[in-house]
């Protein structure tokens, strides 16, 4: 059962990692526009990948 000496801190550490990620996402305003974020991934600009003049001859 000595293994729990490692496992409990590891479990807590992983949990803290997730918590930290969540707090970061809250603080960086990622929950301010839930509708917009859902639509934004579908926005697809129809632009040429590169300027034609840059292409090699």
């Amino acid at each position, binding site marked *: *059962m000595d293994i729990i000496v490692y496992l*409990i801190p590891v*479990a*807590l550490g992983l*949990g*803290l990692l*997730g*918590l930290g990620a*969540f*707090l970061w996402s*809250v603080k960086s305003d990622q*929950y*301010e*526009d*839930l*509708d*917009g974020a859902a*639509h*934004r991934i*579908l*926005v*697809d*600009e*129809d632009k040429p990948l590169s300027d034609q003049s840059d292409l090699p001859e």
Partner: protein
Amino acid sequence: MTAFVDATQPGCPSGLAPPSTSLAGDLSAFVREKGGVKTLTLSVRGAKCGGCLSKIETKVGEISGVRGARMNLSNGKLVVNWVGATSADQIADCVSNLGYGVSAFSEDSSAKAAKSEERDLLISMAIAAFALANIMLLSVSVWGGHGEMGEQTRKALHGISGLIALPVLIFSGRHFFQSAFAALRHGHANMDVPISLALILAFGVSVWETVTGGAHAYFDASVMLLCFLLVGRFLDARLRRQTQAAAHELAALQNRSLNRLGRDGQVEAIRADQVQKGDRILLAAGERAVVDLKVTQGSSGIDESLVSGESLPRTISAGETLYAGSLNLDQPLTGEALGAVSDSLLSQIADMLEAGEQKRARYRQIADKAVALYVPFVHTTAALAFIAWLLMGASVHYAIIIAVSTLIITCPCALALAAPVAQVVASGHLFKRGIFLRSGDALERFAEIDHIVLDKTGTLTLGTPELISEHGAELNLAAQLARASRHPLSRAIVAAAGPGPIADQIKEHPGLGVEAQIGGESYRLGSADWVGIEDASVSSGPSLWFTGPDGASIPFRFEDQLQSDARETLSSLTQQGLTAEILSGDREDAVAKIANTLAIETWHAKVSPTGKAERLSDLNASGKNVLMVGDGLNDAGALAMAHASLAPGGAMDISQSASDAVYSGGLGAIRTVLNVSKKTKAIMLQNFGLAAAYNCIAVPIAVTGHVTPLVAAIAMSASSLIVTLNALRIKGGAAWT
């Protein structure tokens, strides 16, 4: 997504919102500048989908000097950063030309405070949830190893749980402790007092158990209690912020700027809130007055339909007073501001609003009543259990454990979630149907309505006249004159005739009509006496006369048309047993006609704003729960007096802020609001019933000493889950929309 977006098509490509191009004055007063970079926040209406996002951001981004344009689809805010000479109006025009309504947005401090409160609660909730998951992990192993686990191991696991729980209780629990402390200091108790007591006692007992090597520690129960309570608190804060944001959004529509004439004769654009008494204001044709003005120069027709309910314009000239909300129709006017914007309301209306606010503040929500029952009940039960066990010879330690487990298990989780979850689900449901709730408790008041009072102009009717007489070629001739005028009757002729040419040498005579040349011949379009008609008896209701060079006159007759769904809505409301009446400031014949068409027996015409409020207080006194629906400044007092009130989206800002909800679209919204509210109230009552039933089972178990931490955990999560799932039923059922 962009594949089917046609950038030339105005408005939202998904068709979810109609295109609009309303643009509010000069926006340069709302630009903030920092280090050469100018920032403007616009409130965009009508953007509903990803197509709108890319259309607006791309087009605005193409304007020269623009560094970035970012649109928030949830609240319709567009933030633009740019450098150089580009003006704010160019940016607003660009969005407006794409088919969206634009107004300036300035965030106030209350919105910021609400946002930081919501964020605080979300963070506290996340931390409590993290602690709960980890403590539960340890608790499950304690429960699972019951009887086999050595005392040292159990003690260690309890110890770790306690170490996780302590900082979390202090950090996430502070919301409750602070509020409970504040309440106790003022000598009364609120919901947070029993919550704080349960949290502290549960933690204290668990520490004692851990130190003495006892079998049961309640760290998991106390953190779970905290977590569920924070969920309820968070939902409540979120709903309040959303309703507040909706209210603020409406106020933003009125974020107009106006033109002030300086002493040197220079015209300067200022924000409406910068106006001071005595400022000379220039009111262009087509502009709506933001402050009360005493006209000093010029003469023009003004549309006062939002102020008095009168559907026909009147002429105003120097020396007369022009009230805020009036629309200047034909000629520029110069006037002196009679006060700042906040003073520009008729003082009696402001007084009535205050009276209404006070009345509403006294309204007791179901949740308040439930808490008032709950708090003494729980404390008495816990105290009685403590005394009873002592009398029966149990140790003080055991009696305390019983009392604490009673406090924990009769947990207010279900109670804390019962109302907020239902309100959040209902307001989201209404929001999707174009109805913005301005307060959560309004739902309960809407559910109690038994009588409806409706304003006529702009509420039952469209508020704009339509041509009802039949014409041939003369319609196109008249339209050539009408196209030059902003008078509502002229606009109605143009609407009937469609696009076309404009006549030459147009001269508009304020309050009289338009004179112009077509093909070298002189024509007139205007009031009967102006064109030379003495017997105007042909027409009932508003009319215009058109005379040609031959002197023959043709009448054009108009009518303010009913909202398309007015009849259907009213008949279905009547079927539900509600009574209705019309309260209008308009002329008697106009009101009688509408009342007849809609089969409404009670109607009052030519009612003054005070008269409207008096009628409402009479109805209140007779014990009726009245729903007031109105849009004008003259309705504001009545809206505030009513048990619950609704305003259409095009209403005056004061009417919108006096009402509980604002709807867009037709009158069908009334039915939706009432039905959803009734269902929400039923669900809330069910939820409180479920919470009570749960307590009926839980209390005997706790008092008799059968609550282990495992039982507490299961009971708490089960009751919270049931209440939440029940609230989600509001969304279902198409029959309720």
